[in-house]
Structure formats: C-alpha cells, structure tokens
C-alpha cells in the first residue's frame, strides 16, 4: 500500500490535471457547440426553423380561388383544368396578401402560350403544339382561345385544331383528357 500511497502527490497532481482537462473540455464545448446542436441529429436544430422562415412568393391555388371563385368554374372540364393559377399568372403571394398592394398583371398571351404550345420535337407528341408563326399570324392567342378553357364550346373558332398544324399528331379535338391532366387525384 505504501507503494501506492506513499507518494500520493503524484496521484493528486494527475487527478488535478485530469480535472483541469475535463473543465477545459466542458468550457470549450459550451462555447463552441451552437445552441440546439444534436437535438435531432448532427446539426443545429434551429436551422429547421430558419429554413421554414422564408416568405412564400407563390400563394397557391387555394388562396387564389378564395376570391376568384369564378375561374375554377370556367376551367371545369377544360383542358387547362389541371393548370394552377400561378403557372400562367406568376408569383402573386403579395397580391393574395393585399390585392391593393400588388396588382396582378394580365400575361401577354403571345409569349405565354408559346412557352408550352410552341412546336418542339422533344415535347410529348400528344401534347397540343403549333408552329406559332404559321398558326396565329401575329394575332394574340386570346383572340380565338379562352385561356381558362381553350376548347370551350361557343368560342368563335379553334384554328389550332384545323388541319395543317405543323404536322403535329394528337391535335384532334375530343374528350381525351388534357395530357397534363389530373391523373392520380390531381397535382399536389
């Protein structure tokens, strides 16, 4: 025993050193590890909240139809039924928050419609496409087509469905669902 405790200042010194080390570790840990780190995993828990904090730019269809309830009526059964408002009208969360603050602008149909309907071989063949220059001759699309329901009966003419539309098959009018229809319960 005297071998062990005869010179116990060695042990005391070692224990003290160990204690200092532990304290230093705890202090450094408290200083360096940010708050919330490790609550859910190897990251700062607050980062989740920070990612959530962003304001939204697109209000979402539900917000639009709160006021514009007539539009879904007009789109019902049409080929554009599955297209959500802000796909064409752009981000309008500001408008949904306060209609006076941000005015919704009517999009220019010539540029807008062509984004989706200009002929392109990489597009699915059954998707309605036209050679814009031949098809419209500089006329605005909305002259003939109702954008909310492009095939609505009673519309003056539907030149997009006439023969000679850039050789694109699948343009025949019919009850076939919109290629981008609402399969599987609609878009989410």
């Amino acid at each position, binding site marked *: 025993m005297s071998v062990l405790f005869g010179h116990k200042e060695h042990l005391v010194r070692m224990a003290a050193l160990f204690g200092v080390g532990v304290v230093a570790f705890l202090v450094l840990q408290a200083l360096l590890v940010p708050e919330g780190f490790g609550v859910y995993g190897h990251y700062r828990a607050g980062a989740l*909240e*920070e990612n959530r904090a962003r*304001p*939204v730019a697109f209000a979402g269809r539900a917000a639009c139809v709160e006021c514009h309830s007539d539009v879904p009526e007009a789109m019902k059964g049409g080929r554009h039924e599955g297209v959500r408002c802000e796909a064409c009208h752009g981000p309008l969360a500001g408008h949904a928050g306060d209609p006076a603050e941000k005015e919704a602008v009517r999009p220019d149909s010539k540029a807008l419609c062509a984004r989706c309907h200009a002929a392109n071989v990489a597009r*699915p063949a059954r998707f309605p496409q036209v050679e814009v220059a031949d098809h419209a001759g500089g006329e605005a699309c909305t002259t003939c087509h109702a954008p909310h329901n492009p095939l609505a009966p009673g519309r003056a003419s539907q030149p997009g469905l006439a023969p000679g539309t850039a050789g694109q098959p699948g343009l025949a009018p019919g009850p076939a669902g919109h290629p981008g229809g609402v399969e599987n319960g609609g878009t989410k």
Partner: protein
Amino acid sequence: MNQDRRDFLARSGKLLLLTGAAQVAFEAILRGEPAAAPNYRTADHWWGMIIDVEKCIGCGNCVRACKEENDVPREPFFFRTWVERYHVQEGDVEPPDVDSPNGGYDGFPERYRTNDGSKSFFVPKLCNHCARSPCVQVCPVGATFESPDGVVLVDKTYCLGCRYCVQACPYGCRFIDPRTKTVDKCSLCYHRITKGLTTACCETCPTGARQLGDLKDPKDPIREFLRTHKVQVLKPQMATGSKTYYNGLDGSVR
C-alpha cells in the same frame, strides 16, 4: 449552451420520462420555438417527389418559379432545379446528346428534327432528397443534414463553403451561392411544404409532371402512383436512397 448541474439533471430527467417525438416537441418549446412543435410535426412526414418524364413539356416554368420563390441567383448556371433535353439516336442509347440552355429558364429553342429516327425528351432535375445522402455524409461541420421529415437542408449560417458536398452530390444539385459564398440547393420549398403548400415547381408545373408527395401519408396520391407505375430513381447503383422517383425514364438518362 451554458449548462449547469441543475440543467443537466433536469434534461436527463426529461429524457428518461419523454421519448421520441414528445422529447422533440418539448425541446422546441424550450428553445422558445413552440411553432415548431404543434401543427406541423416533422415525425409525421417523409417527403418525396414523383417526376413523370412523359408529361414534361420543357416549358421551364419550374426553373423560373424556383428562382423566384427561393431567390436563386439569376446569372446563368445557378439552379436549384433545371430541365435537361435528351436526344438519343435510333438504336443507339449511348451516348445521349444532352443540353440544357440556361437550365431551361428561357425554354428550349427547337434543335432536332422529328423524322431522323432519333427521339428527344425533357428530364427535370432537382435535389433527390436522398435518405442516405452522400452530401450530408461529407459535411465536416454538420451544416447540411437530412431533416426528420426527409428533406436535405442547408444551415446557411453554419456552412463554411468548403465545397465537399458540391463534389459529393452524384446528381450535381449543389452550387456555391456567389453572394454568400455558402452552399445552396433545393430545399424542397421547406418553407412552403411545412405550411401545407406544395413546392413552387409543382405549383407552377402546368402538366403535373412533378408532384410532391408525403410518403408517410397513406392517403397521398404519391402512394398510389408508386404502386401502379414502374418508377426509377437516378443512379440507383449509388444507393443514395433517392426519394425523387421518375416515371417513364429512359435508360440513357443519368
């Protein structure tokens, strides 16, 4: 975090009493963020996305909407989501011609002909929100992580900008934001999906080619879709646990 003995004992006690979700909620309330606890519970969700290649028309709405929603730098070649156009010669899958002019932001000018035996199609790309993300594994400081609801997120205030994750991502989904010099990527619109909205790209996709889905929700249409379609993830051989499922994906796509 300053932690004295009383704190330590209190925390340990709670840890023994509360488990799992209750503990997480309690921690959120303790941090003064009760909003994180009720309403939206991370444990109730597991987000993924389905992309129906046969429905994509390459309009670029998703690319524009994403930049708008998430303030992605407007200069070319910074994208959280982008659209690629594949062009495959008849009977010759390798190598495909791939182009993505400005990520599809301005659409795709006509480039190929129909009747030369080739085929072309669009493939939207985004972060695959892998369950076993290579990018998360390499982050030296824990600045990128898989959230409890299955979204790979970035802690911008904690990121060093070391770029390990940019190299590690097999899908090329990450970039360094030139303004902050930290990494940026698709957050699956975490600020939207946790409020009950869908992502900006899904909101604006006119054909429903992209659909957000909650894989933990038995009533979500994504469950039915995955059951009834032959879907594929990108680079399955890398075992990333990708949760972006492609329907109608051609073998030439990588």
